[in-house]
């Protein structure tokens, strides 16, 4: 019970900090819009399969960019203060949950803006969105743990990208595969097993982050 309260407070803290520095959030959103527009100008006409890959590339870079700030407010003295207040388990759960909300928000922006501007039509919105959400959550789990690692290095944005991309590649391959199935006019049976695989990937990455994070936090 105590833990739940702790997690709630920690999420609220992250939310308040984001509200105070709206600049960071808004700049991420603008970054997305300008990337989408650059892609629109350079591709103009895309088949829906290629459009889907492009969507994931934009979403991946947007989320990675945003992930650089996960642990930025908890460095130095703030970290020691937080360490004395909360257990590492609550910290990682709150970070994972908050990052889920935030990446979902970003992914939906990318999804709807690319769909509008490229005027793509998708037969089944529901199943496609399920894949998008599951994929983006798995990505945000990996990025959260890796940002905890990279935040204390010198060139952290680059290190975050090199640490995460190789690990994320298989996640992306699975997601793109599942997503392409979800965009067919009739949903094949394979789709459900792919969704299950994505769900398991989420569970696995979150569990690994939960188990390994206390070792980082102790320092």
């Amino acid at each position, binding site marked *: 019970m105590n833990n739940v309260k702790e997690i709630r407070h920690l999420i609220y803290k992250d939310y308040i900090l984001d509200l105070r520095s709206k600049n960071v959030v808004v700049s991420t959103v603008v970054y997305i819009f300008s990337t989408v527009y650059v892609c629109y100008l350079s591709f103009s006409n895309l088949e829906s399969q290629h459009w889907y890959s492009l969507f994931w590339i934009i979403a991946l870079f947007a989320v990675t960019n945003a992930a650089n700030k996960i642990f930025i407010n908890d460095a130095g003295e703030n970290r020691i203060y937080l360490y004395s207040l909360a257990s590492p388990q609550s910290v990682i759960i709150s970070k994972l949950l908050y990052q889920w909300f935030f990446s979902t928000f970003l992914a939906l922006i990318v999804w709807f803006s690319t769909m509008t501007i490229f005027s793509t039509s998708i037969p089944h919105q529901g199943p496609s969105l399920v894949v998008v959400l599951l994929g983006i959550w798995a990505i945000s789990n990996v990025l959260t743990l890796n940002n905890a*690692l990279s935040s204390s290095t010198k*060139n952290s944005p680059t*290190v975050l990208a090199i*640490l995460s991309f*190789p690990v994320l590649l298989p996640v992306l391959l699975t997601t793109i595969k599942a997503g392409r199935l979800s965009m067919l006019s009739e949903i094949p049976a394979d789709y459900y097993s792919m969704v299950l695989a994505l769900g398991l990937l989420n569970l696995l990455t979150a569990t690994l982050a939960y188990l*390994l994070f206390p070792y*980082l936090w102790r320092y």
Partner: protein
Amino acid sequence: MKGIFWKLLASLLVLYTVLAGFLFQVPRLPILHETIRNLYFHVPMWWTMIFLFMISFILSLRYLSSGNIQFDVAARESVNIGLLFSFLGIVTGMIWARFTWGDYWTNDVHLNGAAITILTYTAYIILHNSIEDEIKRARFSAVYNIFAFVLMVVFIGILPRMTDSLHPGKGGNPGFNQYDLDSQMRMVFYPAVVGWLMTGYWIYQLKLRVQRLKMKEEE
């Protein structure tokens, strides 16, 4: 000299494989022809790489449970040697692919898996190099090593089941069992694997001893 027996055995086995690999009879098969001999050189590289990465995974686990810095030094050295073997594996594979598939690189699950593995462990080395503090470096890179290794094993288990592959032994392409009519290739292949595993471990030990001496000198 410690362990002279197995070191001598390793040298003899590798020497035998090189000689026998080039001189012994091999099955004559269309497309493959003489390139089938690559089996003796290409496959043992990957076995040795996986063996060394497993050693580093276990060492990282032991580091996190004990906090002894020696485990971290050893984990890093085994990744270094594992990377050396992965480069050799990639190069032998690429030369082979040029003569059988007609290209140095194709979009194939096996090749993607190899590329992901190399990128992941290079990222590990970069992370290890970019943190100044000794204990922090050890702890962070151990966490990344465990995270990456677990995910890699899962993906190498999942991915090949999702797609077909051109690679021998996978996706309807005949493996080594079908090529080998009189078991003659086994007489070279198994000694090659054992010989290279031992040689890899030997190089790793030498590297580790040099590193320990360097550390002593610094103190």
